[in-house]
């Protein structure tokens, strides 16, 4: 039964892949041949420091502009380009004009490697903003580490993006978003400080790393902050009937339920909990963040997220205004915001390093304290940002910002 479902999934993916292939192929072919043609002369490391005045400084933006998630890539590119435009309006960085090199990396490993090789070997870029997806960011980070290129991924949450297999940190790879389990920590802080919860019931899918990571981080922080986890139940992603678990929740009478799963499960659990007269708030993570979230089922729920355009901080409101002015009234999403933050982080670090040298810039990033749109950023030893998260409340059928919580 399980294997049949897996097989079905594989079939779907096979169909999707073959469907994507024709469109994607021409786009990858060109950079690939160019990259391999230029590979030979550019074997020596390309990290010789450039003069600090005059000329141009190139920043590559690697984003999925075609393939399965083109809107991710378009938002990322637009956010990053706006940051570069603003810096150029102020006179560039280190006296140099900033030039963006945009490449389509398709949210896949192979095109991402081709795009990264192309920008590094052919365009002689020392700085990369990207990719969106972890499975593309990880191979790019290998190239960045090998060739001494500075990379900031705006949105890839996988631990392996900044960590080598042996557990050490990749010296020149950073990210602008927090990693997944961090949301559990923020969720617990919000539950204790704002919801005044003393007891919590944790529901999670044992077979999903993202969900389990959040649940474990929540439990650890919630207990540390003086709360008590009165019950823990696991389920599988194929479950639709949660009545048995919810009967136990009703019996345990917790102050809140922590359910850090994706929206399909939240929709099911939320609807069934309401049906059983369970009224305590549910708290989750950014897996809830979807237009498909059933707001009736998730009513009176809260979830942590990277950013909200309703955040009242001036940085956010300025950003929303500028983005709308540039892109005909569009509201920036989390991807555009994090790409904007990543680009700003990189340029600020270059500026404070005072030299066009990725290693020096990496040193500057490690010690940076930066007021980004998505929160104040400092880096931990693993190059993961320590920053605030926003809390979104689902109330009266609307999703609205209620708080920004720092760890």
């Amino acid at each position, binding site marked *: *039964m399980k294997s*049949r*479902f897996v097989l*079905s999934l594989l*079939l*779907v993916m096979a*169909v999707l892949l073959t469907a994507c292939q024709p469109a994607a192929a021409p786009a990858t072919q060109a950079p690939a041949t160019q990259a391999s043609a230029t590979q030979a002369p550019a074997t020596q490391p390309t990290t010789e420091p450039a003069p600090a005045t005059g000329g141009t400084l190139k920043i590559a933006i690697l984003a999925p502009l075609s393939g399965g998630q083109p809107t991710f890539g378009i938002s990322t590119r637009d956010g990053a380009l706006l940051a570069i435009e603003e810096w150029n309006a102020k006179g560039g960085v280190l006296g140099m004009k900033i030039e963006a090199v945009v490449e389509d990396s398709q949210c896949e490993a192979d095109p991402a490697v081709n795009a990264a090789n192309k920008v590094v070997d052919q365009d002689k870029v020392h700085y990369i903003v990207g990719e969106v997806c972890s499975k593309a960011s990880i191979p790019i980070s290998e190239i960045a580490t090998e060739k001494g290129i500075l990379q900031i991924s705006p949105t890839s949450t996988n631990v392996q993006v900044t960590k080598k297999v042996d557990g050490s940190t990749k010296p020149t790879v950073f990210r602008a978003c927090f990693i997944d389990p961090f949301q559990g920590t923020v969720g617990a802080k919000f539950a204790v400080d704002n919801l005044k919860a003393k007891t919590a019931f944790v529901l999670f899918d*044992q*077979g999903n790393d993202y969900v389990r990571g959040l649940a474990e981080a929540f439990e650890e922080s919630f207990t540390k902050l003086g709360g008590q986890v009165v019950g823990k*139940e*696991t*389920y*599988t992603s*194929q*479950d*639709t*009937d949660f*009545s*048995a*678990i919810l*009967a*136990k929740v*009703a*019996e345990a*009478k917790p102050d809140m339920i922590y359910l850090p799963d994706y*929206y*399909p499960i939240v*929709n*099911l659990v939320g*609807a*069934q909990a*309401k*049906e*059983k*007269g*369970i*009224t305590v708030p549910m708290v989750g993570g950014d897996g809830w963040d979807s237009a*498909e979230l*059933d707001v009736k*089922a998730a009513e009176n729920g809260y979830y942590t997220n990277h950013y909200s355009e309703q955040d009242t901080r001036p940085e956010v409101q300025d950003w929303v205004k500028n983005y709308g002015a540039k892109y005909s009234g569009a509201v920036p999403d989390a991807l555009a915001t994090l790409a904007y933050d990543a680009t700003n982080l990189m340029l600020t670090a270059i500026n404070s390093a005072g030299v066009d040298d990725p290693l020096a810039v990496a040193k500057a990033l490690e010690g940076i304290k930066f007021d980004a749109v998505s929160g104040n950023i400092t880096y931990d030893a693993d190059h993961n940002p320590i920053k605030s998260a926003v809390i979104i409340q689902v109330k009266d059928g609307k999703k609205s910002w209620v708080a920004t919580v720092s760890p």
Partner: protein
Amino acid sequence: MQRSSSLSPALTLGQRIIRRRLIGRALLLVIATLAALRLVQGLIESPTLFLQQIVNGIQLGFVYALIALGYTMVYGIVRLINFAHGDVFMVGAFVSFFAVSRYRLHLWLANLVPDLSPDIALLIGSITVILLSMAVCALLAVTIERIAYKPLRNAPRISALITAIGVSFFLEYFGALPFVFSPNFITNERPFPVVTWYINNGIHQLVPGETVPSGSVTFSNIAVIIVVSSLFLLLLLQFIVQRTKIGKAMRAVAYDKATARLMGINVDGIISITFAIGAALAGAAGVLYAIAFTQVFFAMGILPGLKAFVAAVLGGIGSIPGALVGALIMGQAEVLSAGYISTPMRDAIAFTILILVLLVRPTGIFGETEREKA
């Protein structure tokens, strides 16, 4: 010489164990004892929680029963395990989604006759949705039968079985196409609001936002609707099979196809009707499932379909009361193992029960050793 020795009355111990199915019996006994101990412990710890779990299991069991009947009826007549049945159930759920969430068909009477009491209008509207779904599923099943199964009626049974699996995949992935049902999870709107009651010194209605007092057992109007409509459809089916001319013909075809044809029964027509009735029940189950769990997606039929199939085998495939009993056992087994043993293990436990029961009674609880009838 060797052959006769193995049949001699002096059987070896090993042979005796196999012949009396001792291993199966022993395993069943051990596991049943362990499970019973855990349940008694749970009952003593909190009788209301135990009762609540039983109530939850009944709701699930009746949905399985409706699907299981389709498996059992078709098997009884053409000896085919119709693996596409779960996907017919999925189509039924989607008919309900389109009718209610998209086209608001459940409000037709309320819109047509505004003076009518809204409850009655909604009731008739909801029944219309169920009937529509049943009709669409019946039509779908008859089409599938004519195209995919009828040409294989005299082929080896394995060919028909593989075709059934093929039809199942076809329905799933045809449904997953973006312009059909789409590959996403879709939230289904209920045609009527949920009302929850709790039993605590009498039955009280739960006001939205109110917390249930401890020590009460809750149930919703959805559970009531599922149980009532399932029971009604089951009795109707029993009436059709036992008391009508068509039912008599169905039983005759199940008993002996060739002789039934000689008696002037239109065998092909009866087989089509059997598929139609089974699928109509699955369609009704699809609507009830979509109302209960408010979510539809293209692969939603796989697991309930498999569990209903297990329920049909458990009860004795081919037996209508067996399908009901098997489904109720499955519902309880699932909810009680989720409640008292382990939630991720619930399916494993449910399928273990199947294996153990079959070790002891290979034909299922109500199965006949000679041959099954519809």
